[in-house]
């Protein structure tokens, strides 16, 4: 009897970091060895790489399918492979203690996967795998049976909006671009994902690069572009490699290059590596960077759709937007428009991180309440702590408190509470997070990533950061909150590009919802979440201390004293509140108040 065995090993960046490549190697070796004993199994088994399936916290994830029955294993390491092969692949007895639990299914079952649908299922390094799941059918249909105007109309009707952060209706933008009379049009895919903690676009490029390329072909045809660029950051080496491979394969199949699908339409796609400037995610800065200039935003208008790359009409969409397109063109605008909320259609890919049980990459229908994302898909707060807030939209977004936990996650919903969709970052914060410190953290990022061109962003974010630092270090003054608010509003209202306009969001939203925390820092000189060390007093509980001396060795200012195996003490007149003793103590004897 021939049994069909398929083993899929998660080999996105997260999977590889967790040891995915070694697990893969172990499987190959085990199969080679087992091949002698059971040739039938080997002959019909396939072993392949898959991209990120979202649940990165459980990597290395491995799917083993025997005769079509799939079992998923979590936390797999190379030394576990021998047993998986012998018991499951050969013996057909799944190793139950290593299988994923119910929470894995809760995580996945509450999602609606369009963009991430094929991630984790197909081998990103094989175009045939993509073709097997109807890949390039949409592009073929568009090029051979539809006019560009029909394509734009379909995308308009689907209600698809830009997933890079702006949320501008994609079809409308294409329409603006196509309306120009020009000898050349360009299409650009923005894969310059730069938000801290965001990995949506990277995962798509790593896990299913052809979906993005197919989307670009559709977009290029709609606006009449014959040259496309993928602007991707060089810090994504795996994504870059898979992208290059995918472009090569697509060209060999005749999906790129000249006379696509036997039509007169030509499209060449070039890859441009970004050097890691956050501001290059802003479309005019991105264009400047492709042109070889310093990545600095330009004033709009003119909008890139009218005057973009090399002064020609240009469309820039992000990876997720492009990856949606094949599905929309295959299944129709009405199908897509039926998913989501009133003004935000379709799904959104979200990088769910922070103090949450199930961190990972998820895809939800627009309009899903925050609560469901955090407590159903995310599995609630880690360690059963209390939920405090959720930060959405990356460093430019805002913090949303408990009172808005039922808020629908779509463009309008998030904007209504002073946050934004952004590219889809979601950081969950619990009771141990200090909101002033969180605000400072994001300002540190935006301040150092400002291109320096316009005054409010270059200097305003710097001064905001200085005031926040002052407050967290106990130097806050009466009037600092009002000053922060005024300056934040001025930076928001007078900056040149989206970076400066949105950089004050974390400050404004935390003041709005957590003003009492600011006041505690400034007036009582206390950090309620016990995060800001300069506002805390460190001491050692005499009944807990075993006198191991770890804290004493960690202290850089010799503020701790005590005999061996006797309780130690901290001299607070010497202590500089660095927190090293707290981190060093293995017996929870160091307390901070």
């Amino acid at each position, binding site marked *: 009897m021939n049994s069909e065995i398929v083993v899929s090993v998660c080999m996105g960046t997260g999977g590889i970091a967790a040891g995915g490549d070694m697990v893969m190697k172990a499987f190959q070796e085990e199969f080679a060895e087992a091949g002698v004993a059971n040739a039938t199994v080997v002959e019909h088994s396939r072993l392949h790489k898959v991209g990120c399936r979202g649940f990165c916290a459980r990597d290395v994830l491995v799917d083993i399918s025997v005769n079509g029955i799939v079992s998923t294993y979590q936390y797999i390491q190379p030394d576990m492979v021998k047993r998986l092969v012998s018991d499951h692949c050969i013996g057909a007895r799944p190793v139950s203690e290593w299988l994923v639990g119910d929470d894995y299914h809760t995580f996945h079952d509450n999602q609606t996967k369009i963009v991430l649908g094929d991630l984790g299922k197909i081998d990103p390094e094989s175009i045939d795998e993509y073709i097997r799941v109807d890949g390039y059918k949409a592009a073929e249909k568009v090029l051979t049976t539809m006019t560009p105007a029909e394509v734009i109309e379909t995308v308009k009707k689907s209600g698809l909006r830009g997933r890079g952060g702006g949320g501008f209706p994609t079809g409308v933008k294409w329409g603006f671009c196509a309306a120009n009379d020009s000898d050349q049009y360009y299409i650009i895919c923005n894969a310059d994902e730069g938000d801290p903690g965001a990995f949506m676009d990277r995962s798509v490029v790593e896990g299913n690069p052809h979906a993005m390329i197919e989307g670009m072909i559709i977009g290029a045809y709609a606006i009449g572009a014959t040259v496309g660029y993928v602007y991707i950051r060089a810090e994504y080496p795996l994504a870059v490699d898979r992208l290059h491979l995918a472009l090569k394969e697509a060209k060999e199949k005749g999906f790129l290059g000249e006379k696509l699908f036997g039509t007169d339409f030509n499209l060449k796609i070039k890859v441009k590596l970004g050097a890691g*400037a956050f*501001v290059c995610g802003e479309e005019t800065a991105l264009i400047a960077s492709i042109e070889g200039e*310093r990545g*600095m935003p*330009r*004033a709009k*208008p003119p909008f890139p759709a009218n005057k973009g790359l090399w002064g020609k009409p240009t469309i820039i969409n992000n990876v997720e937007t492009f990856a949606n397109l094949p599905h929309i063109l295959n299944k129709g605008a009405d199908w897509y428009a039926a998913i989501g909320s009133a003004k935000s259609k379709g799904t959104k890919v979200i990088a769910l991180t922070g103090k949450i049980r199930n961190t990972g990459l998820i895809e939800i229908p627009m309009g899903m309440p925050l609560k469901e994302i955090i407590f159903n898909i995310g599995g609630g707060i880690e360690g059963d702590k209390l939920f405090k807030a959720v930060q959405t939209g990356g460093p430019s977004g805002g913090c949303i408190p408990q009172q808005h936990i039922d808020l629908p996650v779509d463009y309008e919903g998030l904007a209504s509470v002073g946050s934004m969709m952004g590219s889809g970052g979601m950081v969950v914060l619990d009771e141990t997070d200090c909101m002033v410190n969180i605000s400072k953290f994001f300002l540190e990022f935006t*301040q*150092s*990533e*400002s*291109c*320096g*061109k*316009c*005054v*409010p962003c*270059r*200097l*305003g*974010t*710097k*001064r905001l950061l*200085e005031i926040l630092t002052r407050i967290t270090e106990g130097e806050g003054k009466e009037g600092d909150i009002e*000053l922060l608010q*005024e*300056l934040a509003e*001025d930076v928001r*209202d*007078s*900056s*040149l590009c989206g970076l400066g*306009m949105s950089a004050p969001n974390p400050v404004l939203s935390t003041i709005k919802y957590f003003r009492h925390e600011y006041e505690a820092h400034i007036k009582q000189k206390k950090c309620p979440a016990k995060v800001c060390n300069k506002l805390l007093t460190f001491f050692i509980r005499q009944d807990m201390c075993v006198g191991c001396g770890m804290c004493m060795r960690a202290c850089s200012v010799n503020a701790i004293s005590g005999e061996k195996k006797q309780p130690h003490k901290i001299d607070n007149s010497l202590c500089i509140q660095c927190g090293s003793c707290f981190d060093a103590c293995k017996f929870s004897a160091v307390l901070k108040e």
Partner: protein
Amino acid sequence: MLNLNIDGKDVSVAKGTTVLEAAQKLGIDVPTLCHDARLKPFGACRLCIVEIAGMPKPVTSCTTPATEGMVVKTNSERLYRLRKTTVELLLSDHPNDCMVCSSSGDCTLQELAYLYGIRENRFVGEVRDHSRIDHNPFIIRDQNKCVMCGLCVRVCDEVQGVGAIGYSERGFEAKVITPFGHDLDCEFCGQCVSVCPTGALTGSLWSGKPRSEGVVKTDTTCTYCGCGCNITLRTHGDKVIRVESASDNHNRGWLCVKGRFGYEFINSNERLTTPLIRKEKGAPFEKATWEEALDYVAGKFTSLQQQHGSDSVAGLCSARCTNEENYLFQKLFRAGLGTNNVDHCARY
């Protein structure tokens, strides 16, 4: 033509005109720091922001094209507050040394600080410290005073076509820099100095020289070449202390290194002030009047041509003369002296 309304006044402008230009046409003063009508709009200083009906946020008038029916406000409480914050932010990272700055009285930032009455600064904080001294013969670069308006970088690129400077670093550390941070090594046209709105770029030749007290400005023409650029000499007593050029001149205010920095010969002791004649071989030069000198040359030409024919003489003219002067010179030789032996230093 496009019709728009700015601060309650109607104005018609050609397509392609910016809102700032339209406001200026009405005589409305909109503050700017990074704008220069001779360069492409940049939109960095955010001072020229205006409110346009239907737009949610203020926009920079220097970069926004005028459209039909646009209703613009160049002044409001909100705009005043935003502009004041911007000026205050700039001053929070600027040395407060106007007393000893060679651009005092000529500085846009100083003027803005005065106009917005900024005495106390709400944003006192870290200030940049670019202590590196650039060793070059003509331009003093004091980067602590740079407001990152980008005028120097743009003039070097757009007008001079040199690109000797660019930007580096990000955020607060962003700065204008030479390649690899080396000393400036360019053609030293000084266009960057002429557009710098603060004391970040100044001419070393006028450092420590009088700024305004007793300084007289005289418009004249540069004598270095036939272009005849309009220049303004700043003099103090009988000394020329600085050369500048107004942007509404035929040369649009642009000068070359010679015109801008090559003026020290005027007050040089070695400068010739009368013609000199060497009457015999090996004899020293003797001072002469123009009449004596011209008579001497005319006499020599005549005698040489009588002895050796008309082609025995030749004339060499100078690129420092105007086209008209050069025309007359060749006319003198061809028609007057009957020879084609006439040439010009710029041919070499």
